């Protein structure tokens, strides 16, 4: 009756210390064998977001729209030069950014909030941050509804290239998993990480070309005089991602949608895979101490 998907608790030795490759393999197997758990956690998270508010799941749609309205007003007041179809311009960045912040914020508390369970049963803790990031995908998918609504106002910008959005989202997913693993494990040891991350995320957004375009940096004196800063700004993963999303949804400042910069995306994907590998090893090395520290 007690058939389990898990191998029975095996020999445990203080001296055994698996290598990096073994740890990555272990983490992959854990997520694969606990797919169902990830799914249930994602479902619970979605229910939770919908359940506590009067408008419920309508917030998936309203939230990015209202945020967009705030930025449109803000930028209309301070901008030097108006950008054509600005609502769509920033919406292409707000959607992926909302996914990223929600995922990172949830991942930060994902381990700590399950402290009671972690001290009582042995289960792979990797599933918790992975579920947090995956739950964000659902929000991102819901965001396609308001995107379609806005698109109706700018039909001349609609092109089949918009179908490339999921492909760009895959790159973002991989990068986000890496960040999620690090903050989830880090928050176990340093509980102020949540506060720190809130401000890091805000600064990160303004340093990323979400409300503006990378090409507009040349108009800023500081950046014109220091080309190094422009290079720095463009290696930001979210510079690559925002520009890619914008190219297929909005287009460029000069015209309609164009192909994303495949080379930049490819490099980001490769770097992200390496980043996730490093983050996984760090996470798995720290994992055995979670139950002791929590």
């Amino acid at each position: 009756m007690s058939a389990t998907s898990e191998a029975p608790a095996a020999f445990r030795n203080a001296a055994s210390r698996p290598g990096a490759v073994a740890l990555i393999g272990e983490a992959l197997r854990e997520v694969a064998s606990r797919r169902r758990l990830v799914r249930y956690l994602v479902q619970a998270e979605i229910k939770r977001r919908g359940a506590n508010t009067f408008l419920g799941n309508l917030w998936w749609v309203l939230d990015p729209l209202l945020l967009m309205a705030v930025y449109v007003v803000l930028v209309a007041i301070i901008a030097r030069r108006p950008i054509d179809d600005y609502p769509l311009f920033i919406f292409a960045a707000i959607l992926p950014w909302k996914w990223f912040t929600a995922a990172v914020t949830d991942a930060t508390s994902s381990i700590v909030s399950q402290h009671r369970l972690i001290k009582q049963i042995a289960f792979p803790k990797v599933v918790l941050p992975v579920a947090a990031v995956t739950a964000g995908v659902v929000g991102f998918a819901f965001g396609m509804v308001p995107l379609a609504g806005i698109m109706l106002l700018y039909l001349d910008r609609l092109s089949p290239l918009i179908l490339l959005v999921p492909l760009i989202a895959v790159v973002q997913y991989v990068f986000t998993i890496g960040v999620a693993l690090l903050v989830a494990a880090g928050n176990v040891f340093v509980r102020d990480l949540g506060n720190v991350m809130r401000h890091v995320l805000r600064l990160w957004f303004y340093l990323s070309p979400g409300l503006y375009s990378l090409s507009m940096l040349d108009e800023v004196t500081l950046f014109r005089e220091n080309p190094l800063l422009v290079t720095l700004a463009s290696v930001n993963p979210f510079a690559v991602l925002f520009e890619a999303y914008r190219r297929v949804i909005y287009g460029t400042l000069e015209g309609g949608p164009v192909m994303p910069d495949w080379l930049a995306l490819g490099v980001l994907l490769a770097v992200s895979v390496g980043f996730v590998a490093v983050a996984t090893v760090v996470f798995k090395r720290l994992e055995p101490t979670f139950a002791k520290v929590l």
Partner: protein
Amino acid sequence: MTDTPPPITDTEYAIAADGLGVRYTLRFSRKKSIQRTLGQWLARDPVEQFWALRDVTFRLVHGESLAVIGPNGAGKSTLLQVLAGIIRPSEGSVDVRGHVSGLLTLGAGFDVELTGRENILLAGAFLGLDDAVTRDLAPGIVEYADLGQFIDAPLKTYSSGMRARLGFAIATSVDPDILLLDEVLATGDSTFRAKSKARVLELVRDSKAVVLVTHDMAWVKEYCNRAILLEHGHVVIEGDPDEVVETHRRHTEEEKKRKAAEAKAAGLAPEIAGAKR
């Protein structure tokens, strides 16, 4: 795993612990903030450590029921956590043969937005059960928890007694080879407590080996055939339950007397108590 193979002396054991030690490093102990961590790190404070368990060696063969007793903070729960695979030993090794299950403090891991039925599936997934297995077990759990139509209502509408019943029903629905019990008997109202005690006894009879942490000495004498007394992380005595319980009782009394004497000395003449040290 490339290290020396485990020294297997007897073949039919369920649990073999060899020189088990668990060390806690207090650098990152409970809820420290960056301020404190950085402060300590900069000041190069020596890292405080303490051994919750040290040199614990025992064998448990199939069919045995082992009681672990001792004063608070002796390392009893830590020992169970090591056996369950929740904490990795800092030294020594432990070999556990068979599927281990502990009775959760009821309701850890529940999600209040999910219904009772959904929480059964979630708990099963956390326990590492196949989804099909959990679905097979679900009707029995629902019946045992006796929640009526509440089983399809979100958990946030449950009373604490209902939650405890559901948690207990889930935890005891799996029949493990090795059962780890940590003071789980005191939950719910008196009728449910009687019902749950009967269920735990049933599990104890059915499982191949049991490790039980408890303060209930009557239970130890009645249902266990071996006992270990832990004090300050060390095994003080191991063997016949009556004998171990008696040693524990004696030690507790001595400790009480010592404390009383200390308090008396400190109260009446602090300078004498200080000079004695």
